[in-house]
């Protein structure tokens, strides 16, 4: 605690004596969960302050207390030296505290313009100025360099674009204090660059920025100071320049990680899956091959058609042309069940929307694909059911209170493990991972990578979709680049650190 204050004084000495925002003993409980334990933090005017920590460390909770989403259970908050309640979003916005939250919280049915001005509409004589708002919104978007149509219905945008809308919205509200909670998780490189440029401009204008991310390179690229949270407790606050990645990780998880991108070399076996000129909604003419022990990586921009391609392989959407071969034999996959029964597993892009029955038990989620096997006669064998669930909870090391705990009670990384775990019992041989590490902390990422290795060693093949290029480099044996629904280039043994190759891949993906 002393350290914080000293730190604060040191960096604050330049401008003013009173910090912009000061937290003292901030505390938050959700029922039995103690999410934040007496956190003290100081945010200086005009700085970019990073907050890092594992999944469930309490980062988002801290933000939600500052923006009035949740009401704190204890402690005090001082805004320019004066104590404030921050009991409602309205109040927070009033001080100029705005946030771009981790999950996109906008109204999907409304237009981009309507979302930008929500709660702050332009009215004349009590009437909405529809056209003026669209015009104004377009101007704002153009000015910050986001290429988004202000009149578009929000749900027609990609998640990344929606995140940008949320960003634009937060920045236009006379903001003095702006919080980004994992803003780049769903952004393409292009969009990330736009965002960083914006953050630079905001800093120049004197806006104080809090930046939360699991991508440590971003922390070093952008921020002035960095605070670490662990288990809801404050660990340290340092000048970013005075620390390094290793130290941060140690602070976050109290141990060092030698190799973040974990990959063992495993010899390739026989071919598992091959597609020949496969076409469907959103992709065309895609031919790929996966062998036992092999990871193929699919890289591309959001909307490149990678998800559509794998979902078609999985039978979610019908293919319109081409052929799928399973272990050399042509197969017809018309629905998910066909894919599952031959041994294909899909870990979908969105855990919340596609992967989990959140309010149901961990065990039910794990067993969902294999209930047929757990059934004796008409009735489920309760012992087999429990055993199957427990085995996966153990094998994949899911941290859960019990197999009956609702999936929603687990932290993001552990939820991801459920989605993976349910296919292990089933005995799938081809695993399709669509953005498996979005929003996952470094420690859990390593766990997931280790899991990849286990799968490969057991003779499975993996298709990995990721928009996070370092991940694809390190993990994929073969890298395919998608652009506008077509496979435009393939690279063998992609885990090379050659800069030239990176550039090539990027160029291919963007179609420059």
């Amino acid at each position: 605690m002393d350290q914080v204050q000293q730190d604060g004084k040191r960096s604050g000495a330049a401008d003013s004596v009173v910090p912009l925002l000061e937290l003292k003993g901030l505390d938050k409980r959700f029922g039995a969960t103690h999410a934040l334990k007496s956190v003290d933090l100081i945010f200086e005017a005009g700085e970019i302050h990073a907050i890092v920590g594992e999944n469930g460390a309490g980062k988002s909770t801290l933000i939600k207390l500052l923006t009035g989403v949740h009401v704190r259970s204890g402690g005090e908050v001082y805004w320019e030296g004066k104590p404030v309640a921050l009991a409602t979003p309205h109040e927070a916005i009033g001080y100029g505290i705005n946030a771009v939250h981790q999950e996109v919280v906008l109204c999907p049915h409304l237009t981009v313009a309507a979302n930008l001005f929500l709660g702050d509409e332009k009215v004349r004589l009590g009437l909405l100025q529809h056209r003026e708002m669209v015009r104004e919104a377009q101007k704002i978007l153009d000015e910050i360099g986001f290429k988004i149509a202000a009149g578009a219905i929000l749900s027609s945008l990609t998640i990344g674009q929606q995140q940008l809308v949320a960003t634009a919205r937060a920045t236009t509200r006379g903001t003095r204090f702006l919080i980004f909670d994992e803003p780049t998780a769903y952004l393409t490189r292009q969009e990330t660059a736009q965002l960083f440029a914006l953050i630079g401009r905001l800093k120049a204008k004197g806006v104080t920025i809090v930046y939360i991310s699991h991508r440590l390179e971003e922390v070093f690229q952008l921020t002035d100071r960095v605070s670490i949270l662990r288990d809801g407790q404050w660990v340290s606050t340092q000048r970013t320049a005075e620390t390094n990645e290793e130290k941060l990780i140690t602070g976050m998880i109290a141990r060092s990680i030698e190799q973040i991108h974990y990959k063992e070399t495993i010899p390739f076996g026989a071919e598992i899956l091959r597609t020949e000129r496969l076409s469907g909604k959103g992709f065309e003419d895609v031919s790929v091959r996966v062998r036992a022990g092999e990871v193929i990586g699919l890289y591309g921009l959001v909307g490149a058609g990678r998800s559509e391609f794998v979902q078609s392989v999985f039978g979610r959407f019908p293919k319109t042309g081409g052929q799928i071969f399973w272990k050399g034999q042509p197969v017809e996959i018309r629905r998910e069940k066909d894919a599952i029964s031959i041994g294909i597993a899909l870990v979908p892009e969105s855990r919340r929307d596609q992967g989990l029955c959140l309010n149901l038990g961990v065990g039910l989620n794990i067993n969902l694909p294999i209930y047929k096997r757990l059934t004796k006669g008409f009735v489920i064998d309760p012992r087999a059911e429990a055993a199957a669930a427990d085995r996966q909870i153990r094998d994949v090391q899911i941290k859960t209170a019990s197999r009956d705990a609702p999936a929603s009670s687990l932290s993001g990384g552990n939820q991801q493990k459920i989605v993976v775990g349910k296919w292990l019992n089933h005995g799938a041989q081809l695993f399709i991972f669509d953005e498996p590490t979005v929003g996952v902390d470094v420690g859990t990422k390593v766990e997931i990578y280790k899991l990849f290795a286990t799968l490969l060693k057991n003779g499975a093949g993996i298709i990995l979709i990721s928009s996070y290029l370092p991940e694809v480099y390190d993990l994929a044996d073969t890298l395919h680049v998608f652009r506008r629904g077509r496979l435009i280039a393939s690279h063998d043994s992609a885990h090379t650190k050659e800069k030239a190759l990176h550039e090539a891949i990027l160029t291919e993906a963007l179609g420059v």
Partner: protein
Amino acid sequence: MSVESKIEMSEAVQLAATKQRARIGTLLSLTLVALLALMWVVLAFSTTSFWTYNNISNLLRQGAMIAILALGETFVVITAGIDLSVGAVVGFSSVIIALLLTNGFPISVAIIITLAMGLAIGLFHAFGISRLGLPPFIMTLATLTALRGVGLLITNGATISITNDTFTGFSRGDFIGVPNLFWMVVVVAVPAYIFLHQSRFGRYLFAIGSNTEAARLSGVNTTRMLYLAYTLSALCAAFVGILLAARIGIGNATQAEGWELQAIASSVIGGTSLFGAVGSVHGPLLGSFILTTINNGANLLNVNAFWQRIITGVLIIVIVYFDGLRRKKR
């Protein structure tokens, strides 16, 4: 730079798609207008009496009450809620105003008190839903049950005759040839249109239906907006209760049974989505007049009353199906 220009190109396509979407939205209501017009043309040719001044003004009078009810219901449905109590509120209000009038209250005072009672019911709904956390379906189902009971208890099951002829005469009168009852639709719909489509409160209702959390984080007082929506629905229902009392000249707690379902059906036929965030003012009006036309036409064509039910059921499926298709095409 060249990357950006390429991306820009792809964005242009998207922009065009959005414009088209907006056009389809207009098309939807046009399709309903077309459907209504088609029904009217067919009826004009197949009956001698449909296209007479008398019948058209009957039609306008008959559709008026469900139209207002559907309009009020729409506010609630846009927030992804539902109000099952409106029929009961209509019956209850008819009792209240009849009681007040027979006890010598002046018409204006009686109307104000009745509307205030509607307001109170709406507030109670919103209280139950937002403070007690009850699902709207259950909250309004409970008041539906209870309100009918209270109305019956007050009157001891009897009907209260309204002897005030000024009051009852109103429902039969007209103004520049258009029935007063239809004017009441206009009187409700115009401010409703401004409220829903032109004011920030309307915008907030859509926002809540779309994503309550997002609305809340934008500083919208979502609780207050829920109060507003349920109050408006109950107010419209109380107003319809007054109109009903004027039209039938009595107050009776069992009246308007099942009108809630008709109101919801009208609203959905008019393009309102029961999942929230989709709806308009003109939609429910069109929907209710489509249903009214079915009944009116069936009467004129001397179609068996039982067939009317079957036709209504089938038409609801057909219309909502095509509406859904159109939305999906977006």
